[in-house]
C-alpha cells in the first residue's frame, strides 16, 4: 500500500471519528446545561472550546463567548479545522483521494454525509433542530463505520483506519471526561447545589456508555467510578484502555506486514489513581492533559514510521 494512501486513510478515520465525537460533545452539553443554573450557561459552553484546545482560534474569530457563537464555531466554522463541517469535508477529501481502496458504497455514504452537512449545518445552530442534526451526524458516521466494518478486507487499509479511529476516540474520551470535570469546577465557583450526578450521567450518555456502566459497575453514578470506567474498563469500546489495545493490535499487525518495528507502546501511557470524588479536581484535569500529549506522541511515531515524507 502506498504510504500516501495509508496516511489519508488514517486521517479519514480520525476526522470521521472527530465529526461524530464533536456532535456527541455538543449534544451532551445541550442536554446538561438545561439542568444547570442560567448563569452557568455561557461560561460552560466555553469549556467546549477550551478543552478542544481551540480558544485561540475562537478568540480570533469571535468577540462574544455566547452559546450561538460557540456552537457555530464547533458545527460549521470553516476556520475551525475540527468543526463538524470541516471534519466531514476532510473525510471526504481524504477518501476522494483513496477511492481505489474503499468500497464504492462507502464513498457514496461519505458523499451523502457531506451533502447533508452542507445543507443542514444551520440546523445545528438552532436549539429546536440541533438534536436532530447532531443525531443524524452520529448515525451517519456510525453507519459508515459499520459499512467499513462489515465489508472492508482486513488488510493494511483496515489497520490504518483502525489506528486512526482509536487514536481519535481515545483522545476524545479524555476530552469528554475533561468536559465533565470542567463543568463541575464551574458549579463550584458559582456555589450551586452539587449537580455531580447530572454531569457524570451525561458524560456517560455522551459516549453511549450509561447502560454499560449500570450493568458493569452496579453502583450509583459517581464521578470517581465513571472516570475509572471510561479510562480503565478494558471491555468498554470507547474507554482509553480499550482503544489503546486496539491501537497496539493494529500497530503490531502493520509492523508485521510492513517489516518495520512497531512504534507504539501504550504501556507507557501515564497513570493516575482515582479513589474518591476529590480526586477529580485540577490534578485530574492536568492528568488528562498529560494523557492527551502522550496520545499525540503515539500519533507522531505512527507518522514517522509509515508516512515518511522524504
Amino acid at each position: 500500500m502506498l504510504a500516501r494512501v495509508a496516511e489519508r486513510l488514517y486521517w479519514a478515520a480520525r476526522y470521521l471519528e472527530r465529526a461524530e465525537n464533536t456532535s456527541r460533545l455538543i449534544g451532551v452539553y445541550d442536554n446538561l446545561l438545561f439542568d444547570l443554573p442560567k448563569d452557568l450557561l455561557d461560561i460552560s459552553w466555553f469549556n467546549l472550546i477550551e478543552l478542544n484546545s481551540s480558544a485561540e482560534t475562537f478568540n480570533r474569530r469571535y468577540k462574544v463567548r455566547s452559546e450561538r457563537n460557540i456552537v457555530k464555531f464547533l458545527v460549521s466554522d470553516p476556520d475551525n479545522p475540527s468543526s463538524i463541517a470541516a471534519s466531514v469535508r476532510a473525510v471526504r477529501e481524504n477518501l476522494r483521494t483513496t477511492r481505489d481502496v474503499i468500497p464504492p458504497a462507502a464513498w457514496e455514504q461519505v458523499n451523502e454525509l457531506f451533502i447533508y452537512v452542507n445543507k443542514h449545518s444551520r440546523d445545528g445552530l438552532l436549539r429546536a433542530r440541533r438534536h436532530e442534526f447532531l443525531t443524524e451526524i452520529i448515525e451517519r458516521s456510525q453507519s459508515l463505520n459499520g459499512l467499513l466494518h462489515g465489508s472492508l478486507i482486513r488488510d493494511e487499509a483496515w489497520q490504518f483506519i483502525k489506528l486512526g479511529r482509536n487514536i481519535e476516540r481515545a483522545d476524545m474520551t479524555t476530552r469528554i471526561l475533561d468536559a465533565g470535570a470542567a463543568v463541575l469546577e464551574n458549579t463550584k465557583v458559582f456555589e450551586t447545589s452539587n449537580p455531580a450526578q447530572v454531569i457524570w450521567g451525561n458524560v456517560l450518555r455522551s459516549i453511549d456508555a450509561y447502560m454499560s456502566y449500570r450493568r458493569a459497575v452496579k453502583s450509583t453514578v459517581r464521578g470517581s467510578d465513571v472516570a475509572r470506567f471510561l479510562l480503565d474498563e478494558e471491555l468498554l469500546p470507547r474507554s482509553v484502555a480499550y482503544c489503546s489495545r486496539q491501537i497496539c493490535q493494529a500497530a503490531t499487525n502493520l509492523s508485521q506486514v510492513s517489516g518495520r518495528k512497531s512504534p507504539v507502546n501504550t504501556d507507557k501511557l501515564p497513570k493516575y489513581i482515582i479513589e474518591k470524588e476529590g480526586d477529580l479536581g485540577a490534578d485530574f484535569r492536568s492528568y488528562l492533559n498529560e494523557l492527551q500529549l502522550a496520545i499525540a506522541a503515539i500519533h507522531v511515531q505512527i507518522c514517522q514510521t509509515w508516512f515518511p515524507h522524504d
Partner: protein
Amino acid sequence: MSIEWKNYECADLYDELINNRGNPRQPARRLANFVSKLGVEELQKRRQLADATVQDMGVSFTVYTDEGNIDRAWPFDIIPRIIPAKEWNQIALGLKQRLKALNLFINDIYHKQEIIKDGIVPAYLIQNSKNFRPECVGVKPAFGVWAHICGSDLVRDADGKMYVLEDNLRVPSGVSYMLENRAVTKRVLPEVFGRENVLPVDDYPSKLFDMLAALSPRKVKQPEIVVLTPGIYNSAYFEHAFLAQQMGAELVEGSDLLVDTDDCVYMRTIRGRERVDVIYRRIDDMFIDPEVFSKDSMLGVPGLMRAWKKGNVALANAPGAGVADDKVIYAYVPKIIEYYLGEKALIPNVPTYLCDNEDEREYVIEHIHELVVKPANESGGYGMLVGPHSTKKDQEKFVKLIKENPRNYIAQPTLMLSTAPTLTDGGRPEPRHLDLRPFILQSKDLYVTTGGLTRVAMVKGSLVVNSSQGGGSKDTWIVESEGV
C-alpha cells in the same frame, strides 16, 4: 400530461430516436412509448432522482474556470440514445481497423518512416508536429503498440452516416462517465431495462486491466499496475480514481513514484519501495518526466523516460503517441489505413481542408463563415471557430491566425450533428445535438467498448458537446433487435 412525439420538432434534423415524420425508429419504439406514457411530471421526478443519484455517487468533473467549486456534478440526461447492434458491429470493426493502422503508423514514424519515404505523408508534417517526440525515436514498445487507449469521436451527419471526427490518442477521458451513466439509467428507468435487449458495458475495466497486464515487462503472475494521475485538481480526477478502483490498481501521483539507479520504477509504500511494471498515465507527455520534458513539472517522475526506454516499465499510452492525433495527420488517416492494411477505411473521415495547402487555404478563407476551423493540436473544444455561429470579428481573427500559422489550422464543413430527445427545463424532450466517443484498446488484442460515451450539447442549437464547454451526456444503448 403525456408526451406526443408528433409534436417533437425534428423535421430538418437527423434524430437518433424519432424519424422526421414524428414516429419512433424501430429499435427505439419501446423506449419512446414508455417515455410518452410516463408523462411530463413523472419524467421530471425521474430526472430529479437521476440528479440525486449522480450527486450521491459523487460523479463529478472539474471546470477550470469555476472558481472555488472544484468539482461539479456531471450533467446527465435520462433519455438514452439507441443504436442497433447490427449497425454498431460494423462501426466497431471500423474502429479496430483505424487504431490498428494508427499504431502501425506511429511505430513507423519512430523507426524507418517508410510512409514518408513512399510519399504518402509529407515529411514536414512530422517535423513540424507539436506532438512528435524526437526522444522516442527507436524505442520499441511491446507489440509495436503506442496508443493503447484511444477515444475516437464519431458524429452522424444529416445524411444519417457516421463519420470519425477525431482520434484522441494522448490521454482520452470519459469512459468512467459511460459506465456511471449506465448505472444511473438502471436506477432511473428500471422498467425499460427488463424488456429491452441492451448489451452490457461493464466489462471495460477488466478489459483495460488485461490490456495493461499484457504490457508488463516482467513476466510475473501479478504485475504491478498503477494509474498515474496529476491529482485532485485535474478535470478527470474522478475518472482516474474510478478506473484504479475498478481495476484494483494503485492510484498514484508523481510523488509516489521514483526511478532508482537501476532504471526501474518504484512506488513508495508502507513496506518501503515496490517495483512498478505498468503505468497507465493520465498526465500529458510534456509533464511526465522533468529530466526530459518540462523541467519544472511537479506532476511527473524524474527518470521515467529512462526507465521506459530501457524497457523496464510500460507506459500507456506511450509518449509520442500523440503524433497521430494531430488534426492535420487526421486528414491522412484514410490513406494511412490503405497504406498499412491494404483496406479501405470502413468509417469515413469528415472532409478536411488543410490550411497549409495553398488552394485549400484560399477556399477556407473564402468560406470561413460556413466552416468549422480547428487548431491542429488543441483538445476539449478550445480555440475553435464555428463559422455559422460566429461574428464577423471572430472570423477576421481566425483569418489572421490562419495566415500567420497555416500548418496549425484545419477546416471542416459544419456538420448538422444528429440529435436525440433530451429533457429540457420545461420538462419536455426536445432535440439536442450529440456525438459519440467509443473507446478502443490495443495491446495483445483489440477491443471496442459496447457503444461509448454520448455527449450532448444541452443548449438548443449548439454544436459544442465538450464537458469543459458545458455539455452533458446520456447513456448509450446498443440494442440487439429481436428476430423479426
